[in-house]
């Protein structure tokens, strides 16, 4: 009894220090970043494309647009391939293949992002340059690389969501004369919808926060993209690229960029959580 309580207390201290560590980091970022937003003006900071730290111009709209573009691109690619993969693995592949492939897909998540970026620079970027024109370093290249990087996240959560759909729904549908494919679109995807949406949102959260691979393939130009072939700079890339020499207001503006990212990702994760909670709440038996 006494030992239980001791262990409980120790674990509580460990847990609290981990959480308070995170809270401290968050507080630090906000303390460093928020004042400059107020000084520059939120409108100016978020809606101006003029980023010229040496002149004191801090507008992050180009980077916001860049992050948004590559994240949406990655989401599209991630959705198409992950959903396809999850559907095939849970519905059509023999059970052995699915059991073997799922861990393999999850392994992809463990590959360092610099490797993805490197492969992208060496193969994808020249391919885009030759086939489609432009510099190759582009929204498209970043979207594809990010799409592949978030594939394990989305696939694995989507597989869980599809597997959570009772097998009796599938059999019931097929016994009523539905083909496998009709069952997928009309029963499975509908029943697993919230899990899949949550998976995609979490994937987007990962994509928008990714840095290294994006720096390598996105081109890092400071301008709003007008086509998929334009180079862009994302919020994360900008912090990583400039933090080495930034000081004073510039440094604070980079922290403010971090605050922006922090808020976006928190919102995305909260949305994902809310969507999957709603699903849990709606399920009932009997």
């Amino acid at each position, binding site marked *: 009894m006494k030992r239980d309580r001791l262990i409980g207390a120790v674990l509580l201290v460990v847990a609290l220090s981990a959480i308070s560590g995170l809270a401290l980091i968050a507080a630090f970022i906000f303390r460093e970043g928020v004042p400059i937003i107020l000084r520059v003006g939120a409108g100016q900071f978020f809606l101006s494309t003029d980023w010229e730290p040496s002149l004191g111009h801090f507008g992050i709209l180009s980077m916001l647009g860049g992050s948004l573009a590559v994240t949406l691109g990655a989401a599209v690619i991630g959705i198409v391939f992950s959903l396809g993969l999850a559907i095939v693995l849970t519905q059509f592949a*023999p*059970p052995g293949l699915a059991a073997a492939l799922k861990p393999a897909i999850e392994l992809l998540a463990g590959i360092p992002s610099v490797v993805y970026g490197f492969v992208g620079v060496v193969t994808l970027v020249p391919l885009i340059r030759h086939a489609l024109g432009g510099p190759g370093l582009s929204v498209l290249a970043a979207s594809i690389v990010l799409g592949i990087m978030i594939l394990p996240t989305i696939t694995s959560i989507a597989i869980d969501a599809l597997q959570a759909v*009772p097998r*009796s*729904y599938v*059999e*019931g*549908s*097929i*016994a*009523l*004369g*539905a*083909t496998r494919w*009709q069952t997928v679109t*009309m*029963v499975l995807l*509908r*029943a697993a919808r919230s899990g899949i949406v949550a998976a995609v949102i979490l994937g987007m959260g990962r994509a928008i926060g990714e840095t290294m691979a994006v720096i390598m393939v996105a081109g890092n130009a400071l301008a709003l993209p007008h086509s998929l072939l334009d180079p862009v700079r994302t919020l994360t890339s900008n912090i990583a690229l400039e933090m080495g020499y930034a000081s004073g207001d510039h440094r604070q503006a980079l922290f403010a960029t971090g605050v922006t990212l922090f808020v976006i990702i928190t919102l995305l994760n909260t949305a994902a959580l809310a969507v999957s909670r709603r699903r849990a709440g709606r399920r*009932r038996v*009997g």
Partner: protein
Amino acid sequence: MQAPRIVVQGFTACFDGKPAVKNLDLEIFPNERLAIIGPASSGKTTFLRSLNRLNDLDHGFTHSGKILHDGKDIYDADVDVAELRRKIGMVYAVPVPLPWSIYDNLVYGLRLAGIRDRTTLDERVEKALGYAVLWDEVKDRLHEPANVLSGGQQQRLCIARVLVLEPDVLILDEPCSGLDPISTGKIEDALVALKERTSIVLVTNNTKQAARASDRTAFFLLGDLVEVGPTAQLFTKPTQKKTNDYLVGQFG
């Protein structure tokens, strides 16, 4: 007697090479209620799922022999399996409506069959609910979620959503196993009315139900059809010792 609707000839069904139904010969006639009884693992479910080719979903399933539906082997390569499953409608032991409204559950099969006309859908729904003895209980709440119904109502809904398709054969796998006597009675009543329209194959673990609610009874044991005959005769004067042993409770 009329020509049989289903003729099973030397049909064997295996999972991973192990036979679950062995060399089965059986006929199912129009307008009859055939009960199938037998202890656990005797191949009853396997046989039913062979009739609408649901076993095809199982990667380890293989079969030999024939099952003729109106003279045509249902395992022929040119059979439209979706169409077959509409003609041979199946009801499971545990009622699982799809997670939609009552109405959407009922018209799902019709929509799959390409029927979109609202009046036709509504007519077929009302008729099927009537046959399933459910119309009065749900007519005012067709657009509520199906899972708010009681277990017995859900089972009748599952019967109705098969009946809207106007199947030739209705196969039911222990449809009353989780239900109270009143719901069971309603389902048995529905079967009486239904046999005017379709053949009924009723698998049941409850020999009393087989005695009450069928015209003929087949006794399965370990994948073999031991005996099949008119229900009254099979229950009073079984020709096989194994049947008799089962009926007096020697096993299962």
